[in-house]
């Protein structure tokens, strides 16, 4: 049994494979069947369930998926550069996970509500969040940055997995809305909606993920749990989080779990579309494990060369989500050089916009923090604000004389 103890030694995905084989041998746990439609070679395969969803993707939508992935990768490069130049305090790169995020985000409908972690920049793009606003949090000028009511894309949540429970609660709210509408007897105004809860392989160990799946199952809530297994929780490999394929965990809660090739945007889109339909139709939750890889660092404060070999990164680069779709689009004659040149130009334009806007992101006044601590008036906040105003006013003369001094210095006096 010694070989089944959690290994903290690095062994990459070979350990994953071995551990899953162990799980099968010891517990009769079936190995995960990974849904893949578009392979790394750019060839489109078939699947009895999901091909019909893939077939709905017109050439235009396929080109759109490629353009989205290219745009968010370009954005990622720009944001990383902005951090390196001191314009952002921190950046959380997504490179490698474009297909998982664009595929799932594009499968959602406007009425669906999305709860991201803090790396879902690609999903944000699909929900029409202004990507410059996305950077507010990382520039230190907001803990949010956008109004979730505008896009049904919730704020990033940094406390791992806390948002999975919010997602289930929101889904329970959707169910109640539907019951209330039915009881009112009128014609249904709103289309059926579902919720997506994003989390990662690291967060899968958090108790809140367990509780969220218990609640979702108990109430049959319309929620899709979308786990991006990017294989690394900062420096901790997935095999320390789980002995079985993460998608298999759904079985214990009594709902479907699907492992999908997270670098295959067509399969991710198909599986997510199926899962959202399943949820919207009242058939309950689904867990999707998108098998992918964080090609870059956990954040700009992390150096993955310290804990994983470049050979593993190279192996995953060969499964790159953009390259395989480009191969397919070219082979099928669905996109030409002009298209790819245009995508590149659009990406550069987006990067320039983000760079320009980031510099202009307004630093808030601390008075807005006083104003937003409570929704209703709170005497202690009012008292402390009044003290602060008086304290600040005490510097009024000092400030203006200092400014005058600076102005005088600039004027050459």
């Amino acid at each position, binding site marked *: 049994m010694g070989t089944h103890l959690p290994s903290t030694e690095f062994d990459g995905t070979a350990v994953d494979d071995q551990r899953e084989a162990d799980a099968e041998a010891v517990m009769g746990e079936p190995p995960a069947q990974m849904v893949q439609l578009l392979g790394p070679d750019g060839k489109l395969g078939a699947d009895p369930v999901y091909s019909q969803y893939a077939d709905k993707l017109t050439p235009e939508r396929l080109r759109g998926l490629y353009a989205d992935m290219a745009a968010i990768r370009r954005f990622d490069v720009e944001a990383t550069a902005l951090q390196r130049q001191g314009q952002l305090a921190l950046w959380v790169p997504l490179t490698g996970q474009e297909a998982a995020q664009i595929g799932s985000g594009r499968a959602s409908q406007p009425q669906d509500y999305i709860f991201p972690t803090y790396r879902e920049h690609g999903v944000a793009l699909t929900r029409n969040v202004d990507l410059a606003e996305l950077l507010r949090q990382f520039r230190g000028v907001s*803990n949010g940055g956008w109004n979730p009511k505008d896009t049904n894309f919730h704020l990033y949540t940094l406390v791992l997995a806390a948002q999975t429970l*919010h997602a289930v*609660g*929101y889904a329970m709210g959707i169910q109640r809305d539907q019951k209330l509408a039915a009881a009112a007897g009128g014609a249904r105004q709103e289309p059926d909606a579902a919720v997506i809860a994003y989390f990662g392989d690291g967060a899968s160990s958090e108790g809140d993920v367990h*509780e969220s799946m218990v609640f979702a199952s108990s109430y049959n809530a319309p929620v899709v749990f979308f786990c991006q297994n990017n294989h690394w929780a900062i420096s901790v490999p997935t095999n320390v989080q789980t002995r079985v394929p993460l998608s298999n965990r759904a079985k214990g809660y009594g709902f479907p779990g699907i492992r999908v090739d997270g670098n295959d945007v067509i399969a991710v889109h198909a599986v997510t579309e199926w899962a959202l339909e399943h949820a919207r139709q009242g058939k309950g939750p689904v867990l999707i494990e998108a098998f992918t890889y964080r090609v870059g660092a956990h954040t700009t404060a992390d150096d993955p060369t310290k804990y994983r070999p470049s050979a593993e990164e190279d192996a995953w680069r060969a499964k790159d989500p953009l390259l395989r779709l480009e191969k397919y689009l070219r082979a099928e004659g669905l996109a030409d050089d002009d298209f790819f040149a245009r995508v590149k130009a659009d990406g550069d334009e987006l990067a320039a916009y983000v760079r320009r806007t980031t510099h202009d992101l307004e630093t808030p006044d601390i008075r807005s923090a006083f104003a937003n601590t*409570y929704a*209703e008036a709170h*005497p202690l906040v009012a008292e402390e604000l009044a003290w602060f105003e008086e304290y600040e006013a005490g510097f009024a003369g000092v400030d203006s004389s200092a400014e005058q001094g600076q102005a005088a210095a600039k004027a050459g006096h």
Partner: protein
Amino acid sequence: MDTPLAESGIIGTAIGLALRGYRPVCEIQFDGFVFPGFNQITTQLAKMHARSNGNLTVPVVIRIPYGGGIGSVEHHSESPEALFAHTAGLRIITPSNPHDAYWMIQQAVDCQDPVIVFEPKRRYWLKGEVDTEAPGHAADPFKAHVLREGTDATVVAYGPLVPVALAAANAAEEDGRSVEVIDLRSISPLDFDTVTASVRKTGRLVVAHEAPTFGGIGGEIAARISERAFHSLEAPVIRVGGFHMPYPVAKVEEDYLPDIDRILEALDRALSY
């Protein structure tokens, strides 16, 4: 509605329901079991309005039966209110009688902010008049209530110790001492104006709560009143509360819980200056 047995799940899903437009009321069965939900309450519920720059409101109510004196087992007798009062974004109220309980829970539901209602569980069986037509003094759930007027000293209490403070004041009266008693009702925000006005009149203040005195609400009141009414104070503010220990076993909780004599002893000290 029944939920799976998971406090973080109860609070976390309530946040989601509130984001969808509902006003969920959560019940934590006993004070000592709120801690599995502590993360959701402090890092998520309390901050949601602020971190959304005011765009989102989460009007969640959390009912927590609290306090000792019921002879129960471990984790069933605690008073963790200070842990929550320290967290900005939350409102903390605690009714001490049926009339207040009737109005305050409804006001908590109406409030746009998250509200924790600490319900003194040894007062659950108390019978009292409830005016369901007019709230009277309970019109504002965040205002303290002067229960008994006096001139020599003020006793501030909340929740389960309110009747104890009243009984102590009555006993003191037999010794010729006129003691004012204030039911705080709300812990966050805390109605310092009412307490300050009382101390300006009496010059002496005793604060009583079941929670340990160290790092407790009494310390906050002592500090604020020292700043606001320093020249009116004839004596240091004296705290009566639990000791710095895990809540003790039921057979000795009488020695732990502040009672009439402990409050009278504190009044004696305050009046000895």
